[in-house]
């Protein structure tokens, strides 16, 4: 059996996943034996190789990616054309709220709470704006789901042949740790197509836009399932949302 000093020379390779065969098995056995020195060494070894993560040539990131990620995390996106008015309105709201907070509450925590409330309010407004803008398109079709059902979630799916699919849902059940919502576009007579991952906000509300052309006539339904956070190629759980699209 190797000594800790000998194992130390293997830790970076193990951290990178490059160690294999007998050496890997030996090190894993040693680590599972509870060697604190090598466990700590492994953490350091992994961290020391992180400089490699900064070496690739820095790419220009597609500008749509930021909005897509924020939307998928439950944060909505505004319309640029509204930006100035939005900024003025929200700033006014912020000033008022902070002034009120300053009158009644003196500490930083109160101010932070006021700011958080402003963010939530702004998020709600931006969500509504996104939906209105989508609805404003003459070609947009709407499907309502969950209405009359004893259990939520409820909401709407808006489909636009050129712009994509916009899901607006409320009362989504909280996802367990390591799980996420996945949107599915289900063609008539075809297998569900994975159409993006998203999360709800703390209240169980979500607005998620899947951009890109969609064949409305050829779509049978839009569905949402709870999947592992890396997403699935096909649904692995019973849908929590099913919005039939046929007949639009």
């Amino acid at each position, binding site marked *: 059996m190797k000594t800790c000093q000998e194992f130390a020379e293997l830790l970076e390779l193990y951290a*990178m996943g490059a160690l294999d065969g007998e050496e890997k098995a030996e090190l894993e056995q040693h680590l599972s034996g509870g060697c604190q020195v090598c466990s700590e060494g492994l953490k350091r070894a992994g961290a020391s190789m992180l400089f490699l*993560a*900064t070496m690739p040539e820095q790419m220009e990131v597609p500008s749509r990616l930021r*909005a897509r990620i924020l939307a998928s*995390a439950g944060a909505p996106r*505004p319309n640029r054309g509204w930006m100035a008015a939005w900024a003025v309105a929200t700033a006014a709201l912020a000033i008022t709220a902070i002034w009120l907070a300053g009158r009644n509450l003196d500490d930083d925590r109160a101010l932070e709470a006021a700011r958080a409330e*402003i*963010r939530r309010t702004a998020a709600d407004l931006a969500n509504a704006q996104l939906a209105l803008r989508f609805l404003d398109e003459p070609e947009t079709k709407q499907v309502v789901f969950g209405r009359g059902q004893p259990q939520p979630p409820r909401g709407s799916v808006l489909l636009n042949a050129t712009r994509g699919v916009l899901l607006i849902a409320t009362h989504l059940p909280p*996802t367990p740790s390591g799980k996420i919502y996945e949107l599915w576009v289900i063609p008539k007579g075809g297998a569900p197509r994975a159409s993006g991952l998203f999360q709800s906000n703390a209240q169980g509300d979500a607005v998620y836009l899947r951009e890109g052309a969609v064949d409305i006539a050829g779509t049978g339904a839009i569905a949402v399932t709870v999947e592992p956070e890396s997403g699935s190629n096909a649904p692995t759980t019973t849908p929590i949302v099913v919005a039939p699209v046929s007949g639009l």
Partner: protein
Amino acid sequence: MPAAAVSTNFGIIVLCPANFRVEADGLRYAMSLTGKTNWQSRVSYKDDAELAERLKRREPQAMADLYDRYGRTTYSLIFRIVRNTAVAEDLVQETFLRIWNRARAFDSERGALGAWMLTVARNRALDYVRSVDGRMAQSAAELHEMESPSAFADIEQDVLNIDRVRLLRDAFTKLNPKQREVIEMAYYEGLSQSEMAKRMQQPLGTVKAWARSALKVLRDQLGQVAT
């Protein structure tokens, strides 16, 4: 649709344009080394600790700040591994959602957010490449373990400190081509030493020798940092 826009935080932007503090200790992150100079050079691990706290509270603006801080580096790393812009975009999204979903388990006082972010990014990209190639050098369970939030507690929080990274990058560029190649194949392709030997058509012992000598050079550089 607008290509990019801040979603919910105009009030904050209007009121607090300087979201990031310039720390007195002068710590700067390595992202400024990698391309165009940007404001990320002003970010310190103290900013990351504060950001991690906000992520734990699930503040939408925290996600925007996380993206602004690490989006470009994450995208560049993932693209380096998968070499496909559409796939890279999907994997960047997956990476950020994974951080968002697991932030509650992250120890913002003792953890290194940047290290966690980039590790998750690399793992997502390698997991994709391996699934496409039908390779399973590391199991999903191993990857899961390596990117667990707890794995980033008590490592040096300034692991991406600009001086440290510069030193390692300089040392890396001075390695001989074979040494560099094996480290790059390990880090960016996730190849095991046996897979490298096969790819390079070299004896396994030779590949191991290249890898070990390369790592010794880098380790010696880190030793210089420590002293």
